């Protein structure tokens, strides 16, 4: 018998803890820190933070979805002006959107404490890039704290608010996908009610005009120095004295990998990774034979040490790309000679894994939009959302995808380029349209671009798990509110051709798209059907394939529906198809493309 789990692992004494996901711990930390106002725009891996904040009582804390990240940050700033603690949450690329506000806000500072939780996505599990927020923090001269597990995620929130109010600065708490989505035990505390501070009637500080900003800039430089000094002795900076042959400087989730792989090394764990405590780092470096820095993504710590002429190594052993893991950290230490080289474990099985990329759901209402777009051979400027999955075969009907809201303005540019090879269409989801699609639509009308916009209204923010937005008529807490009407918005900005079509009616979609393209000027076609997955799972009666009629032509396989796959029967050298009744939602798109009428309701076949 091999290793039996029963004998492994000793229990820890009865500690009263609760397992929380990193994101839930951050939310709890905000609530415990006495936050009054929290605003966010969803984005993986940060989405669950505000959802979790909204489980705390309304009387304690306002929790709201904002239209985009800049709005969310400005809302939090407003609350801070009024003297209460506030929170804004976003994913890493959300900070790009909010950055204009941030770059002035850092000059202004705070009244009530202000924390921005930013979740990075090393490894690009669900994003368009893997930018490192620590570089942004440095750019904005805003301190950044990096918890390494859920326990710290909770406790660092209070520390962040203290720092914010003590030094008159917004504070970034940086998480990563791994931390946000790892559940581990957390010690719970109580909420601290923080007294509201009076509004600070001080235009020199709160109104950023050139003469005020010049003065504030010097305050900023002073502040950076003071915070660095604070971090010299604060418990956020932790020196774990041990074997001095190797000293490791690390932060965030990387700390866990270091402890796993090199448990005996001396470690300087930086709870705050900007600004850095120079003296502490020097002392640490002097106390060990060599310094190795383990940080995910950019050499943010390493570069600062280079500037200070402190001898250290890092990125020569650890990649600047992707997520770290115990394996990669071990490999890095081996490369550095800090661990003996070990024979790699040979694979027992030689297996070619079955590729299983994510696909649009069975019955996804976005499917038909891209089927008809492919038919009309349009140049398609895409956008960000579930529908970006239509960029690959079999739909393969998106030519570009840049950032949220880019599609419409990209289409304007395409139209203005004077190339008239193909009709130009922008496709954009409902939430993305609200986030950043309205200004470019105004631009298209104003500058008389000849484009078609396909607004994919699936009544939710599907990609991030089905959140509400201004177009759903529901708030984050589930309360009824005004429901924005997309047709009205388009008409109000001057679009003359607006039509709404049922996404499941392939014929109508095709015909209407042709009309929209023929219209000279800006036309908006709204493809309208709720997402089948969120907020409610939709399941209609399943369809089935009448095998005798199926000619194995593979037309229905072009729908890309995950419920359709090959059966064991063949026709003329090709597999016939079958439909998985447990997952088919009965959208009836596939029968609309079947040339031999082989797909029928289950009970009739």
């Amino acid at each position, binding site marked *: 018998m*091999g290793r039996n789990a029963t004998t492994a692992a000793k229990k820890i004494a009865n500690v009263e803890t609760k397992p929380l996901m990193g994101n839930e711990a951050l939310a709890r930390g905000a609530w415990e820190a006495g936050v009054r106002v929290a605003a966010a725009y969803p984005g993986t891996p940060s989405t669950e933070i505000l959802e979790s904040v909204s489980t705390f009582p309304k009387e304690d804390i306002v929790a709201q979805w904002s239209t985009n990240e800049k709005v969310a940050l400005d809302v939090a700033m407003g609350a801070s002006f009024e003297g209460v603690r506030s929170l804004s949450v976003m994913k890493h690329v959300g900070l790009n959107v909010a950055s204009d506000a941030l770059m002035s806000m850092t000059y202004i500072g705070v009244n009530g404490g202000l924390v921005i939780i930013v979740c990075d996505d090393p490894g690009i599990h669900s994003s368009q890039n893997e930018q490192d927020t620590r570089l942004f923090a440095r750019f904005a001269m805003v301190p950044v704290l990096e918890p390494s597990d859920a326990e710290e995620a909770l406790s660092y929130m209070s520390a962040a608010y203290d720092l914010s109010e003590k030094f008159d600065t917004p504070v970034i708490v940086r998480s990563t996908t791994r931390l946000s989505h790892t559940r581990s035990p957390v010690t719970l505390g109580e909420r601290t009610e923080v007294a509201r501070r009076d509004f600070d009637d001080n235009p020199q500080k709160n109104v950023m005009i050139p003469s005020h900003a010049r003065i504030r800039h010097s305050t900023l430089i002073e502040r950076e120095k003071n915070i660095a000094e604070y971090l010299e002795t604060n418990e956020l900076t932790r020196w774990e004295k041990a074997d001095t042959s190797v000293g490791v400087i690390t932060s965030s989730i990387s700390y866990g990998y270091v402890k796993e792989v090199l448990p005996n090394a001396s470690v300087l764990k930086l709870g705050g990774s900007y600004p850095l405590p120079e003296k502490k780092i020097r002392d640490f470096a002097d106390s060990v034979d060599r310094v190795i820095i383990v940080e995910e993504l950019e050499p943010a710590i390493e570069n600062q040490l280079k500037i200070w002429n402190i001898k250290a190594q890092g990125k020569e052993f650890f990649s600047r790309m992707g997520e770290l893991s115990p394996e990669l950290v071990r490999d890095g230490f081996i490369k550095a000679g800090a661990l003996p080289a070990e024979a790699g474990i040979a694979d027992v*099985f030689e297996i070619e894994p079955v590729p299983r*990329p994510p696909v649009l759901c069975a019955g996804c209402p976005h499917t038909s939009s891209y089927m008809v777009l492919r038919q009309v051979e349009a140049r398609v400027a895409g956008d960000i959302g579930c529908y970006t999955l239509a960029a690959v075969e079999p739909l393969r009907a998106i030519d570009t995808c840049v950032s949220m809201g880019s599609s419409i303005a990209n289409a304007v540019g395409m139209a203005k380029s004077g190339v008239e090879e193909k009709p130009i269409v922008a496709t954009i989801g409902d939430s993305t349209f609200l986030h950043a699609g309205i200004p470019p639509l105004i631009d298209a009308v104003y500058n008389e671009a000849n484009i078609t916009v396909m607004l994919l209204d699936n009544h939710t923010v599907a990609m991030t798990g089905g959140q509400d937005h201004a177009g759903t008529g529901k708030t984050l807490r589930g309360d009824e509110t005004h429901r924005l009407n997309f047709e009205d918005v388009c008409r109000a900005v001057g679009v003359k051709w607006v039509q709404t079509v049922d996404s499941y009616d392939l014929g109508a979609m095709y015909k209407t798209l042709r009309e929209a393209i023929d219209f000279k000027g800006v036309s908006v076609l709204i493809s309208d059907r709720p997402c089948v997955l969120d907020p409610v799972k939709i399941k209609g009666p399943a369809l089935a394939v009448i095998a005798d009629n199926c000619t194995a032509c593979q037309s229905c*396989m072009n729908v890309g529906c995950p419920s359709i796959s*090959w059966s064991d029967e063949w026709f003329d050298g090709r597999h016939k198809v079958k439909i998985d009744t447990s997952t088919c939602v009965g959208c009836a798109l596939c029968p609309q493309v079947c040339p031999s009428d082989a797909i029928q309701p289950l009970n009739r076949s």
Partner: protein
Amino acid sequence: MDKKITHKEPVNVLVVGVGGQGVIMVSKVLATICQEHGYQVKQSEVHGMAKRGGGVFSHVRFGEQVYSPTIPKGSVDVLLALEWAEALRWVNHIRPGEGTFISDTQHIVPPFACRNRKRGAEAGYARETSDQIISRVNKGFALDATTMARELGNERAANTVLLGLLSTTLEFSEDVWCDAISRFVPPKTVDVNLQAFEQGRAWAAMDHGTPEPVVHNDGPTPVVVGREEHEMSDFVQLDINPAWCKSCDICVKMCPERCLKLDDQLKAVLTDPDRCTGCRICEWLCPDLAITVHRTPEAARAAAQG
């Protein structure tokens, strides 16, 4: 073969499957039980794209002190797979010669695997059989949990059948598992899930005539399981009679390979002969019989020309 383990070393369970199968629910049940027994637990997964039919995995580690949230390759003590191809994707992560392999043998064939349009092409899905795998792991269970659950009246209880198996490899008592399962499954399905759990435990206790375990003293030898292709190559020729074509566009719209178009004269033409598979849809659908598909097997053609 026994390897002494230190107290500090955590136990590593890797739960894998396909989006929507309940990987996260399964790992939550386990993590909760470990937590309630006073262990440090880390449970790590990646949300996001997961729901949309992609592969999903969740790392559960418990012990006195757990640092890394993810399990290093080669350190998985129990692999629990809800789907066969996903089990195979992760099987090499099991601690060689020591870990336990538990998998449902059901196949969820992704659309991606059914894309080869060549005549004779097989689905690009795993061909490895359960015997091939079970014979080379220290301890292995491969069973059709989905069918077992369906027979109990709820296919979704397949996960709980697997939890029943998992429970036999860990220290926690049966009651503890039943209690946790009852709390995590939808209230209406508690009974069927508890039955499923019992069936899983019973299955583990039965003798299935598992193939003799392979001794790994002389180091592992990789098992190579080939993926044969039976493609037949055809030479396809499309005869389109422009005189009969009335530009109705039907063949263009219906061609599954999207390789026809109307030319400047609005006559159907083949745009991409390499994509045409000779499926004959256009021939059958053309109202004016303007299209004929000629298909000669490559070999026959070569012989004729030779």
